[in-house]
């Protein structure tokens, strides 16, 4: 059998394979990282960066729950200037595409970050839209108009292609997805974490310093999967899927439901080698099923 094709495209941009890491779950730590292995991924998405440095939220910031975890890190990060100076060059040296995740408190902040990154030769920006829409009660990703406005504005100033990362905390995610497409997003990342909480019944205190946080991990996978499927029914825009992907079987479900790319999140904490094991598993699945091109699998779900 001929070589199996794992290359996928978002717009005109080609990736060597469809496996990446979810923002906030992967940090490039030189002393621990095996670059030769890391280079096998399709792309890297570092933690969301903001215009100014952020200290993050009070402890405790994480708690383990049934088949998952709740986090409220508060986008602790060094800010875009320091990121450009200290982190990005090292990431770019790895040699695979870097998808830079950004977030702002206002549209203007998104624009200022995007402008600063214009000098850095970045193929993709991922807009983390699960951020408060200042002056409004909702998150940007909970408001079709704000989603459209933010994406359209960034699209106009940025040299990079734009991925819109959506929140699952909405009534109908396909509505927001359509607004993102209208705003000319090049792809969607589905999904961010689900609002959640846990309580210490002995002390009657929340187990997260910020009271509530975001649920991730295997617990959310079936819901995330249904959202990817739902969005795929209304648009052809490429989807980067995430939510509880632990192994290649989980990843395949998302691909069959319509995802072009899959991102491994919480699983990185449990098995840092998970993304590569998933890549290997997908390759073997394709071989066993006589599928020569991963693109044939994308959205290949059979329904009556």
């Amino acid at each position, binding site marked *: 059998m001929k070589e199996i094709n794992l290359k996928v495209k978002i717009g005109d941009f080609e990736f060597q394979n469809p496996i990446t890491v979810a923002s906030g779950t992967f940090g490039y730590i030189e002393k*621990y*990282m095996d670059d030769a292995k890391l280079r096998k991924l399709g792309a890297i998405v570092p933690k969301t960066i903001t215009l100014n440095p952020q200290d993050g939220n009070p402890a405790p910031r994480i708690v*383990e729950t049934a088949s*998952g975890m709740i986090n409220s890190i508060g986008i602790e990060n060094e800010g875009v200037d320091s990121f450009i100076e200290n982190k990005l060059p090292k990431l770019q040296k790895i040699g695979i595409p870097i998808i830079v995740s950004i977030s702002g408190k206002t549209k203007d902040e998104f624009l200022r970050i995007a402008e600063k990154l214009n000098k850095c030769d970045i193929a993709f920006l991922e807009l983390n839209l699960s951020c408060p829409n200042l002056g409004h009660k909702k998150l940007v990703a909970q408001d079709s108009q704000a989603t459209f406005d933010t994406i359209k504005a960034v699209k106009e100033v940025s040299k990079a292609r734009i991925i819109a990362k959506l929140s699952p905390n909405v009534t109908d995610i396909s509505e927001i997805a359509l607004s993102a497409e209208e705003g000319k997003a090049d792809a969607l990342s589905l999904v961010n974490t689900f609002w959640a909480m846990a309580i210490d019944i002995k002390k009657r205190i929340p187990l997260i310093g910020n009271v509530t946080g975001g649920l991730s991990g295997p617990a959310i996978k079936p819901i995330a999967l249904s959202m990817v499927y739902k969005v795929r029914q209304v648009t052809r825009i490429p989807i980067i899927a995430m939510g509880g992907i632990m192994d290649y079987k989980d990843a395949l479900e998302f691909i069959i439901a319509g995802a072009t790319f899959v991102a491994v999140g919480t699983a990185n904490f449990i098995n840092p080698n998970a993304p590569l094991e998933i890549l290997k598993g997908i390759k073997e699945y394709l071989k066993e099923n006589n599928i020569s091109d991963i693109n044939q699998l994308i959205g290949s779900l059979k329904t009556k």
Partner: protein
Amino acid sequence: MLKVQFKTKIVSNKKICPKYFSLVLDKKFSKKEISAGQFLNIKVSDGLKPLFRRPFSISRFKDNLEVLYEPVGEGTKILSQKEPGEILDVLGPLGNNFIKPEKDVKQIVFIAGGVGVAPFIGFSDDLKSFKGNKIILFGVRTKEHTFNLDVFRNNGFRVFISTDDGSKGVKGRVSELFSKIDVNEKGTICYVCGPKPMMRSAQDFVIKNNLSAQGSFEEVMACGIGTCRGCVIKTKSGFKTVCNDGPVFDLKEIIF
């Protein structure tokens, strides 16, 4: 994708006293690769329960890697049921380490609360050749939490014990033993590891007596390598991750 992930066989895993277990792994690191104070992040189950790895100090590393642990919940209970020959998926050695005493140090004090004694076992091996005054103040709940402490004695430490219920040594908290420290000796370094209230009382003590001190801290962790920013602790210079900036910090820098 990490250089620090490895699978290793369990050599032994047995009770060393009614409350604590000692786990020995078929893994060695050279002196350059490992230091006292570092920890391992161990996957105790192949399934999703529990999901996270569990962090444990490296208690000894002269020969095989060793861990001293107390079963307190689900993860540590599963670990305690593992048999020799079983394979564990481990990340490590992770985190920073205790900084060895400078040349002008004349007195070394270990202050340990409960299973917080673990990292001091290997550290006492490192300090065997140190000629000054060496003591360990070991505070536990009951006699059942004490084990054979000859390793410290053999490494030249005098051992003092306190128990909450008075079943062994002095009755009360480990702070009852602070009087064993020669506070007039300014060349003193205290190394502290134990539950938060103990860390706090040790901090009060070293500040009051103007002694230098390093503390090894615990927070619930996910990744163990500094990625998730989950296990932060508040310090005078902002939030720091226990897993990567620590677990060892200047005790006086911590804000409780």
